[in-house]
């Protein structure tokens, strides 16, 4: 993918996220074994790989909440997790991290107060994630998919330049999935950089760029079209399998 100069972030031409030789240990085991990658600004990048391959750990490192054992992680030109990034990087964890004993509106108003988002912004985001008219519902009483959209909405409030989304579409029906992808593309078109993880390949085609992970290492970084061309498989799931076979054969 050609580096695209993002007019909104002139200090980081091309890449919004840059990871070099990242090593992470968790519980005495090495989870990431020297991962290097770059994520282009204003793009949707898919982080794909089976459960347990280190996707979440990589995302946590990029957000800056993970203690790392080696390497460097830079976001928007600063060290991941540095203070100035807290208002520029949005993070949605796999398990919805919102207050189950508060209503949707109360959750969002609290996170809006922290990020300085207006009441109008809260209304707009509620509509964007399809929770219109549900502001008074207690989050704990919602379905899993609704709860994860509250979590997503909370992260969108601060208008982050970089959004890290850990499996945001898990358990959603196809219509909602399509709607969320529409939101993601809209955000990217407006200049937001998105890194979206998934353990299923059927969303890979939605991404501008793919990061294929397995067993704590990055197998490949390429666009869906490049992956198809490289493997001769039109189905991205099968193409990923070919990549894995080649990596294990070598």
């Amino acid at each position, binding site marked *: 993918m050609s580096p695209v100069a993002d007019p909104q972030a002139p200090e980081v031409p091309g890449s919004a996220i840059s990871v070099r030789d990242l090593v992470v240990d968790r519980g005495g085991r090495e989870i990431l074994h020297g991962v290097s990658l770059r994520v282009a600004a204003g793009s949707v990048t898919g982080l794909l790989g089976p459960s347990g391959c280190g996707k979440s750990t990589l995302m946590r490192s990029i957000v800056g909440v993970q203690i790392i054992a080696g390497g460097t992680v830079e976001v928007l030109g600063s060290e991941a997790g540095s203070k100035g990034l807290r208002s520029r990087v949005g993070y949605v964890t796999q398990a*919805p991290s919102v207050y189950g*004993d508060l209503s949707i509106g109360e959750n969002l108003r609290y996170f809006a107060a922290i990020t300085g988002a207006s009441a109008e912004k809260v209304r707009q985001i509620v509509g964007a994630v399809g929770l219109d008219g549900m502001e008074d519902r207690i989050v704990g009483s919602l379905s899993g998919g609704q709860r994860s959209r509250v979590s997503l909405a909370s992260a969108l409030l601060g208008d982050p330049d970089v959004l890290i989304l850990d499996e945001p579409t898990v358990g959603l029906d196809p219509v909602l999935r399509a709607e969320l992808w529409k939101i993601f593309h809209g955000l990217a078109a407006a200049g937001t950089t998105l890194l979206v993880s998934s353990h299923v390949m059927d969303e890979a085609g939605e991404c501008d760029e793919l990061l294929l992970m397995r067993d704590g290492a990055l197998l490949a970084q390429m666009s869906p079209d490049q992956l198809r061309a490289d493997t001769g498989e039109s189905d991205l799931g099968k193409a990923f399998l070919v990549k894995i076979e080649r990596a294990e054969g070598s």
Partner: protein
Amino acid sequence: MSPRVTGATAVRVLRQIRHDPRTIALLLIVPAVLLLLLYWVFEGEKQVFQEIGAPLCGLFPFIIMFLVTSISMLRERTTGTLERLMTLPLGKIDILAGYGLAFGLLATIQAVIVVVLGFGILGLESAHGAWLVGLLAIGNALLGMALGLFVSAFARTEFQAVQFMPALIFPQLILCGLFVPRDQMAGFLEAISWALPLTYAYDALARTTSPKPLDMAFTADVLVIVGTTLAALALGALTLRRRTG
């Protein structure tokens, strides 16, 4: 520290509790019911009720706020909301102060109820004013909150957090002088009691409710309560980690 974010955090904590009316009822009614029980148990032994009931009015908020805070903070840790907060532009002090404001307000209501019941209705006496018992109760509540916040870092589950009450609070209650004067305890028990925060909380309350004039020892008690609260908050802040393994 941002007053806007601190205030929003306090409002959020209070809203969470408001959605749980049973907890509010327990917070506000249980101390009063326990005091009533003591009153009935010691009917005809006015002096015993005075000696135990009067200081207890100021200790209930400590015990209850310790428990409530350790559980709510543990929930923030286990549900991932604390991790989300740590990625947002808010200071640790905003979280601590927000909790302090919210639980301080609850403790105030709790203290008013139990003090009005004890000193207004059940005939407890405080030579230096029931209001001073109320103020100490609020201070003790904040001490309990600060300790609860700190120890929540050492619990993985709510079962564990609940066990901290018998493990950490009951020994302090037994040794603080409420049941047996400390100078009548075995030497090593008295020595231990000097190191326990509740000893000073009890001592300040006992001095407030006794007719002897308040002296430097009372001031020292208050300073220890305030100092321990601040130290526990500082230790609690250390357990709010931006980065974890």
